[in-house]
């Protein structure tokens, strides 16, 4: 049976509830109605807060803090269809928590690797995110990433930017982490006008570019190695790679 849900975490928990209580045989889980359906039974799960809460309570009781964190992390990998593996993870966890460490199980190994992939992306973006200073002193960064890592970046930069207000804007997901003296939250961004940059901004960008150029050793020139460390897809908002 194919299950359809709305893509939200609550929606997924409601789905888990129905799978358990109505003993559904699941063949795949989708967020959008497929174009064609051939001989396959189809069921739409509606997000239900009471059901979601019930499942959440069960998870909180049966899974360790670390395992709960893993589930949240997997859910942030929103461009991968991870739902079947996650459902399997929950099933195994309820049955026998010891078994969750068994990476010879394909679903569990998939989950472990996907989490690693997410965390390594997060680590890369800790370094590759670039802020620009706006007129009012706010630091503004644009990102486009394959997974939703805004919560990680927000927390990370709260620690290092002291009292400076900042915004991390996920262009594709229309999300932003906003921090200033009063707020510290993730918001959805409906529309956004290009802001004005501070007077010093272009000067520091130029300084950074000349530092970047000067730090390379010509006789060790190795663009292939450079590309393997910073694949082109990360370079969109990194000023040192602008032509």
């Amino acid at each position, binding site marked *: 049976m194919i299950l359809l849900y709305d893509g939200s975490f609550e929606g997924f928990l409601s789905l888990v509830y129905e799978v358990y209580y109505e003993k559904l045989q699941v063949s795949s889980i989708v967020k959008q109605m497929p174009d064609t359906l051939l001989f396959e039974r189809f069921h739409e799960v509606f997000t239900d807060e009471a059901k979601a809460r019930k499942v959440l309570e069960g998870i909180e009781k049966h899974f360790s803090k670390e395992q709960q964190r893993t589930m949240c992390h997997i859910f942030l990998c929103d461009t991968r269809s991870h739902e079947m593996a996650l459902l399997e993870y929950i099933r195994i966890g309820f049955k026998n928590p010891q*078994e969750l*460490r*068994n*990476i*010879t199980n*394909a679903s569990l*190994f998939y989950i472990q*690797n996907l989490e690693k992939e997410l965390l390594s992306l997060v*680590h890369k973006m*800790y*370094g*590759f*995110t*670039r*802020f*620009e*200073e706006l007129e009012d002193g706010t*630091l503004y*960064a644009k990102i486009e990433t394959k997974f939703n890592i805004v919560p990680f970046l927000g927390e990370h*930069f709260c*620690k*290092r*930017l*002291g*009292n*400076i207000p900042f915004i991390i804007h996920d262009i594709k997901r229309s999300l932003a982490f906003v921090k200033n003296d009063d707020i510290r939250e993730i918001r959805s961004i409906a529309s956004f006008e290009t802001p004005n940059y501070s007077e*010093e901004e272009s000067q*520091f960008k*130029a*300084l*950074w570019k*000349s*530092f*970047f*150029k*000067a*730090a*390379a*050793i*010509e*006789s*060790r*020139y*190795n*663009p*292939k*190695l*450079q590309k*393997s*460390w*910073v694949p082109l897809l990360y370079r969109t908002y*990194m000023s*040192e790679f602008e032509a």
Partner: protein
Amino acid sequence: MKLTIEDKLSLLASSAKYDVSCSSSGSENNYKTGELGCTHNSGICHSFTSDGRCISLLKVLLSNICIYDCAYCINRVSNDIPRTAFSPRELADLTINFYKRNYIEGLFLSSGIIKNEDYTMQLLLQTLRILRHEYRFNGYIHVKLIPGASKELIEEATLLAHRVSSNIELPSSKSLALLAPDKTKEKLLSPLKYARDISLQQSTKPISMSTQMIIGATSESDFEILKLSSSLYQKALLKRVYYSAYIAVNNHKHLPVPELSKPPLLREHRLYQADWLLRFYGFSYDEILSENQNLDIQFDPKTFWALSNMHLFPIDVNHAPKEILVRIPGIGIRGALKILQARRFKQLHFEDLLKLKISLKKARYFIVAGKDFYRTTSLYTEKIKLALIHQGSNIIQPSLFDRSIYTGEL
């Protein structure tokens, strides 16, 4: 002519680039509410230059003015190059502005010797004081200890920085006398020893220190180099030794001629591989090499070691402990951990190892997994060598006329 700040930065970054170290790791999270900067335990790379090296720190010299005349160095006093210096204030402001924009993890500050050692060390410290006390900056700071600077100044540096270092430059006293007449091994190591002692008095965790050796400028064998590194690690003096393939920037009668030599990059790579074996894989230097030997160019150090110790193989991946698993060519720390985790649930065969994304390209010749072993190649050194060469794993083919890439000499 007055230089703009951009000219200065280009010049002084370009003079500092031969320092290899750019690590910003190993410091516990030191977050303080409302203050700028915080270190990250694993270190963070912020960009990679066109030579494929990482930029983590703003690596610059405070000044490229120098009273020394070291043969291998681009900034030696006898070179006719433009000279300049940052003021401590300029440099501190630059650091803060780069940090805010997340260009860098912190500052790596070194300098040529202006006037004398103490004067130079004072200027470096002045920069650090502005950053730490005035701007309340908690980001990573790596500062070079100037050999010959007085003890009080070195003590202050260990208090202000996350890491201090002093470069050994050349692997033996003989080479130093030949190429860097103003420096001796004792003079270069003494600030490190002193820094360790005072930081040990103040806390249980000594300040992290590193050094750098130039490879291929002089005639030391890899055995001598690894022996030296290993003794520095064992005395808990250093966290890291960096190896820097010699890049000819000057003409000198005791050095390879610049036009004819390329940096010995593969040798440098092999040394780093061997260095990893020392630090993380439980090897000792005399297991990796015997007296006056150089590292093999064709095979990586672990494969080379395995090929010369066939009596220890094959290894049973279902039973061997971790310290033995990591000695299998082609299996690293991560692979070993995956094996340990997975074999609690089932007996592992080749198929399972592949499913765990463990490459068997090299490892298959050296292991037994359940009933599986690699039947087509028997367990003889020569046969495995041939098979490895045939499949071309991790072997860089030397082109006929290009031997210099390995040795730095023609």
